[in-house]
């Protein structure tokens, strides 16, 4: 079986790999349809039971399905985009061509991200040069082995090079940047700033995702509805559990609209129960010690700060609910630590958004209020406003930008023969 992941030690290895990848793009034109055929087979390979425990695997399987990708491609690349054909545009015609070699710098904390990022470039007909973070080397190798099995003709695998190297190797980072025509960069502020400062060619296009946080909110009609609140709580718990609450789309805080005559004291035990159930179904298998430390710090800070503050948590770091009131967005702790804050008006926290909030997850009974919040949130930099329980549903535009389109060039042809 061919090995797509390599421990890279020199800039020359990266330059050589990029040259081979670029040649592959020149040699064969791939339509999204060609790519999706392999993806379909790969998705089937990924349904193997032994992969079930990989966080995000369900999303990766779903994402790779034709049913998920076709509408995205049609929307981003046009009606003929699926076949890789030309789209008429008045007297001209347009067609998506790949940028060439796209470099991927995924975050180190989302297991499927190296592959998710890579698929976006491949759908545009590009080749993918992926830096695999140290923590994800084994998982990525395991997932890629299924692609190798699903692609015997090497339609895609000849366009992929996964480079594993330490993130401190500035020479390798620079070599990778110099070798690409586009880049998809995911990560924390420090990582993003460092990668953006690398010596990319002047024509390279960069798409940056993160670092951002997400927020959830419910109006009193929703959380106060005795028939619905259990379902709402399950949705919240699901959104918190995915990716161990470390994705940009993970809710870090839940704002509850206060209403006279209604007490959150009835709602919080149900949320508590939903967290317990979710934890039983999806217990954490490992945790970085630093995250454990951060979780205990968050619990202690919260309760010591104000004796009116409440909290519920088990003895271990499994999950944490912090209760209080106020419209300020608390600092994100992650690790299934949700701060629940009562506010008089849900517009109060939204007015404080500063562009750092990616997704607003809503549970609303009042559609007019939802419309008002949506407009307000859009103005304040929020890119996705979705129903609670769907905060991680991976439908572009993501972070306010398309996923495939940024890594293709729309070539316009105006015929000279007319």
């Amino acid at each position: 079986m061919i090995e797509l992941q390599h421990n890279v030690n020199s800039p020359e290895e990266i330059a050589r790999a990029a040259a081979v990848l670029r040649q592959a793009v020149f040699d064969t034109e791939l339509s999204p349809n060609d790519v999706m055929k392999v993806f379909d087979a790969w998705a089937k390979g990924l349904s193997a039971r032994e992969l079930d425990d990989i966080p995000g695997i369900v999303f990766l399987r779903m994402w790779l399905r034709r049913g998920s990708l076709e509408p995205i491609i049609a929307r981003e690349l046009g009606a003929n985009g699926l076949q890789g054909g030309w789209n008429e545009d008045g007297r001209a015609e347009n067609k998506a061509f790949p940028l060439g070699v796209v470099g991927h710098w995924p975050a180190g904390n989302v297991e499927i991200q190296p592959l998710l990022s890579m698929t976006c470039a491949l759908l545009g007909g590009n080749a993918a040069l992926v830096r695999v973070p140290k923590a994800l080397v084994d998982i990525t190798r395991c997932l890629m082995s299924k692609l190798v099995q699903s692609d015997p003709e090497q339609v895609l695998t000849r366009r992929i090079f996964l480079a594993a190297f330490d993130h401190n190797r500035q020479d390798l980072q620079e070599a990778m940047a110099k070798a690409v025509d586009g880049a998809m960069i995911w990560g924390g502020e420090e990582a993003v700033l460092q990668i953006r400062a690398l010596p990319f060619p002047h024509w390279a296009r960069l798409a940056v995702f993160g670092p951002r946080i997400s927020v959830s909110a419910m109006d009193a009609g929703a959380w106060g509805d005795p028939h619905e609140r259990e379902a709402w709580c399950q949705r919240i718990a699901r959104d918190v559990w995915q990716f161990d609450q470390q994705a940009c789309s993970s809710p870090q805080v839940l704002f509850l609209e206060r209403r006279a005559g209604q007490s959150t004291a009835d709602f919080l035990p149900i949320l508590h129960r939903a967290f317990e159930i979710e934890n039983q179904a999806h217990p954490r298998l490992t945790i970085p010690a630093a995250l454990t430390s951060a979780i205990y710090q968050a619990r202690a800070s919260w309760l010591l700060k104000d004796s009116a503050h409440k909290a519920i948590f088990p003895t271990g770091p499994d999950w944490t609910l912090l209760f209080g009131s106020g419209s300020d967005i608390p600092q994100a702790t992650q690790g299934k630590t949700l701060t629940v804050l009562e506010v008089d008006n849900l517009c109060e926290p939204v007015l404080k958004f500063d562009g750092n909030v990616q997704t607003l997850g809503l549970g609303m009974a009042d559609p007019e209020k939802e419309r008002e919040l949506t407009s307000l949130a859009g103005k304040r930099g929020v890119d996705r406003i979705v129903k609670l329980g769907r905060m991680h549903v991976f439908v572009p535009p993501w972070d306010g930008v398309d996923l495939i389109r940024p890594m293709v060039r729309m070539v316009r042809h105006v015929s000279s023969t007319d």
Partner: protein
Amino acid sequence: MQQLDEKIDRILSVAPYCQPPDERQAGLLELLKEELDYACQRHAGYRNYVQHWPVDYRSACHVTDLPFLPVGILKANPPLSFVGPDEVKKTLTSSATTSQSPSRVVLDAPTARRMTKGVVTIVRDFIGSSRRPYLVVDTPGFMGGNALGARGAAIQGLHPFASETTYCLNANDRGDLTLDQGKLLEFARNHGDTEVLVYGFTFILWKHLVEPLLEAGICLNLPKVRILHSGGWKRLQDQAVDKSVFNGQLARVFGCSPDCVIDFYGMVESVGVIYPDCPEGNKHGPAFGDVIVRNPLTLEPVAAGEYGIVQVCSVLPTSFPGNLLLTEDMAQVIAYDGCPCGRRGISFRFAGRIPKSEVRGCGNIESKRSVN
């Protein structure tokens, strides 16, 4: 409070490493519960925290079940305190890098007294109780007034073993340290055949004493020296200096055996408790404190041989919440009893700081530092 004070004094008077683990645990548990009662009366926020702990401390059967605080909480400013401003005798601050805030702990008179007694009790077990000439590899200017840093606290903690004290470093206006070789050689000449005590921060000892003396080819000829040092190893590791190299070169410049060098771990947040290496290279908890090494996933104590996050326990402080602290350090448990050195209870070895993470959004939280 007086009753509590007497109980702490009683436990402080016990030989620090002789009690069987079960007996020690029972004594600590009882006293720590009383201290929790006291602390809850003194601080509403702390009471709120303790009340939310999943296990009611009053019915806890093990020290491991008691509510602990993460050490980072002591970075609060103003510091968390169980005493009024008029009762504060000293404020200790931890060393911190420019990007970090230091911890601040307030000591009232009883806690300060116990801090001294705790350190003396532990150090006595390793070097004996006699007073001897004390060479401090630092500057006298480092000893502050009411505000004391980690270096100052360590220097001061060993004063009860000093018959006279000599500081052998100078600092210029910018704070750069240089060795006062004349003063050092005079100290060596005067005390060549007597027991002497030396203390310095690990990196300072190396950079400002060992390196210059090695370069100058000087041996101090102090065969009866005991050299205590504390502080991080990171900068030395960056220079590829490990413990055996450090001890060997230190022994070379002092003209003593490498066994005379004792590395101890201490943190200002756990006042009065330090953890010197025993001859087996292990660390031990004293009678008035304990160490729990917890699995990061479950927070349960790890089995012997395993690594985890260090929690320090101490009955000494009553002026701030320093009794039960989850540190930001990792350690390996060597055994829960039976260290060949003869000290009872847990033996463990530190394994460096918890690797740092950037915790944010879709943040890249790859480890920036690995466990040593």
